[in-house]
C-alpha cells in the first residue's frame, strides 16, 4: 500500500508538468458521463416508467453503477492500458523488480483526469439517493456500501480479464469493452429491463445483476433482505479472473528488444 502511495505521488508529479492538458481531460471526462444523464432525463420526459421502474429509481441505479465503475477504474486503470505495457516491453521491467506483479501493474497507470468522472459519479450518486424517495435505514446504507464494494471488485475483475487477454494477443481486444464500458452504459437501467436471458447471463456468468439489480430491489423494498448480501458473492468473480491472469503470465513471451 505504501508503494502504491509512492507511485501515486510520482504520477501526480508527472502530470503537474502538463496543466492545461490535465484540466481539459478532466472536463472531458466530466462531460461524457453527463451526456448519459441527459439521455436518461429526456427519455423519462416521454415515458414515465420503464419496466416498472420510475425515473428516480433509475437514477439511483445509475448513480450507484457509475460510482462502482469509476472506483474500479480509478484503482485498476493500469490493467486497462496493459496492452501497450506488454507491447512496448515495459512488462519486462516489471518482472525484474522484486515486487508483486499485480501491485506494480495497478500502480503503473493512475489517471488523475478521471477525477472529472469521479466527481460526476459522486454528484450522480448523491443526486440519485436524494431523488430516490427511499426511506434510508442503517441496513440500507450498509447495503449501498456493500454494492459499491462488490461492484468495484466485479468491474476490476473485468479489467483483469482484459489485461490477461493481452498476454495472448499482445493487444487489448475491443470487444472486451462491451463488458467494461458497455456494462457501465447498460448499467444505467436495472438489468431486468433487457429481458430474462440477459438477467440470467448477468446473474450466473458475469455477475452484474448481483451488484446492481438484486440489491436495488432490496433498497426499493421489493426484494428479500438477503439480496443485499449478493454483492459479496459477486466478489468471488475475482477468483477466475486472477486464475486467467496467472495462466496468461505463464504464456507470456516478451516483445523483442
Amino acid at each position, binding site marked *: 500500500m505504501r508503494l502504491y502511495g509512492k507511485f501515486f505521488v*510520482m504520477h501526480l508529479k508527472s502530470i503537474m*508538468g502538463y496543466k492545461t492538458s490535465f484540466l481539459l481531460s478532466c472536463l472531458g471526462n466530466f462531460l461524457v458521463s453527463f451526456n448519459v444523464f441527459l439521455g436518461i432525463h429526456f427519455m423519462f420526459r416521454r415515458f414515465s416508467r420503464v419496466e416498472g421502474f420510475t425515473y428516480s429509481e433509475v437514477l439511483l441505479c445509475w448513480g450507484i453503477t457509475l460510482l462502482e465503475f469509476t472506483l474500479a477504474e480509478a484503482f485498476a486503470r493500469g490493467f486497462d492500458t496493459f496492452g501497450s505495457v506488454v507491447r512496448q516491453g515495459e512488462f*519486462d521491467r516489471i518482472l*525484474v523488480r522484486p515486487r508483486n506483479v499485480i501491485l506494480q501493474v495497478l500502480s503503473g497507470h493512475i489517471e488523475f483526469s478521471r477525477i472529472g468522472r469521479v466527481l460526476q459519479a459522486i454528484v450522480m450518486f448523491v443526486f440519485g439517493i436524494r431523488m430516490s424517495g427511499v426511506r434510508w435505514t442503517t441496513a440500507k446504507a450498509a447495503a449501498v456500501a456493500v454494492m459499491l464494494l462488490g461492484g468495484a471488485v466485479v468491474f476490476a475483475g473485468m479489467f483483469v480479464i482484459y489485461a490477461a487477454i493481452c498476454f495472448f494477443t499482445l493487444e487489448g481486444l475491443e470487444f472486451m469493452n462491451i463488458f467494461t464500458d458497455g456494462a457501465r452504459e447498460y448499467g444505467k437501467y436495472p438489468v431486468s429491463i433487457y429481458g430474462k436471458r440477459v438477467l440470467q447471463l448477468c446473474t450466473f456468468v458475469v455477475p452484474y445483476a448481483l451488484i446492481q439489480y438484486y440489491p436495488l430491489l432490496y433498497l426499493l423494498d421489493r426484494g428479500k433482505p438477503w439480496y443485499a448480501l449478493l454483492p459479496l458473492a459477486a466478489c468471488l468473480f475475482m477468483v477466475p479472473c486472477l486464475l486467467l491472469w496467472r495462466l496468461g503470465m505463464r504464456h*507470456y513471451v*516478451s516483445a*523483442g528488444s
Partner: protein
Amino acid sequence: MITLENVCKTYKVSRRDAGFSSAFKALLHRRCELIHALDNVSFTIADGEMVGYIGPNGAGKSSTIKILSGILTPEEGTCQINGLTPWKNRIEHVKNIGVVFGQRTQLWWDVPVMDSFELLKEIYRIDPAVYRRNLEELTDMLSLGELLRTPTRQLSLGQRMRCEIAASLLHDPKILFLDEPTIGLDAVSKLAVRDFILKLNAEKKTTVILTTHDMQDIEALTSRIILIGKGKILLDGVIDDIREGFESTEEGLASFYRSHDI
C-alpha cells in the same frame, strides 16, 4: 555463480508476404513457424567475472538475458543463479540483479532523475543508510551531480545512460546485466561508461554480463566471450580466438559469422 544447462526456447513466428491481399489471407489462415531462439545452451559464469555475450542480431542474446533475469521461462533445461532458479524464485532472484536495457528507459520521463531513484529505493526496500552511501558513490563515479535534478526527458542519451546504470545499481546487485549499454553513445560517453564498468567490477566484484555489437566494448572490458549464433553456443573463449590472423576484431568476427553461416 551462474550455471545454465541445456536451455531451449522456441517462439512461434507468423510469416506473410507484404500487401493487403496476403494480409487478408493471413487473417484466415496463419502460417506459423517455430523458431529455435535457444537450442541447448549451456555455460557457467563464476562470481566476479566479466563476460561479453556476443552474436549477430536475432541470435538469441536477448532471450538468454531474459531467461537469466527471470522474465522468460524456457521449455527445457535448468538454470541456477546463486542457488535460485530465476523463473521460479523470481522475487528473491531479482533482488540480487540489476538490468540495463540500452534501448529502454526505467526512469520516469517527466520527473527529475532523483525522484525515480527515490521510487526505486521504495521498490527494492533499500535501507536508507545503504541507499545514501550508494547514491553518493554512484554520483561521484558517474559524475551525475546536476543531472539528478533534471527531468529525464531533457537529458542527452549519454547522460541518460549514466543515470540508467546508476538506477540499476542502487540496491547493490551481485550481478549486472547490460544489454547494449553503449548503443548510440558518443565517444566521450562510451569511454565514461566503460571506465565505470571496469571500476565497478574491480571494486565491488560485481559479475557483469554484457551484450553488445561494439567490439571495442568487448576489447576494453572483457577477457572472456561467449558467442551465440542461431541459438547455439559457437564459442566460449577469449577475444584472441577471434582476432587471430585478422587486422581488427571486427573483421575477425565478421569472418567468423560468415564461416558459420549466421
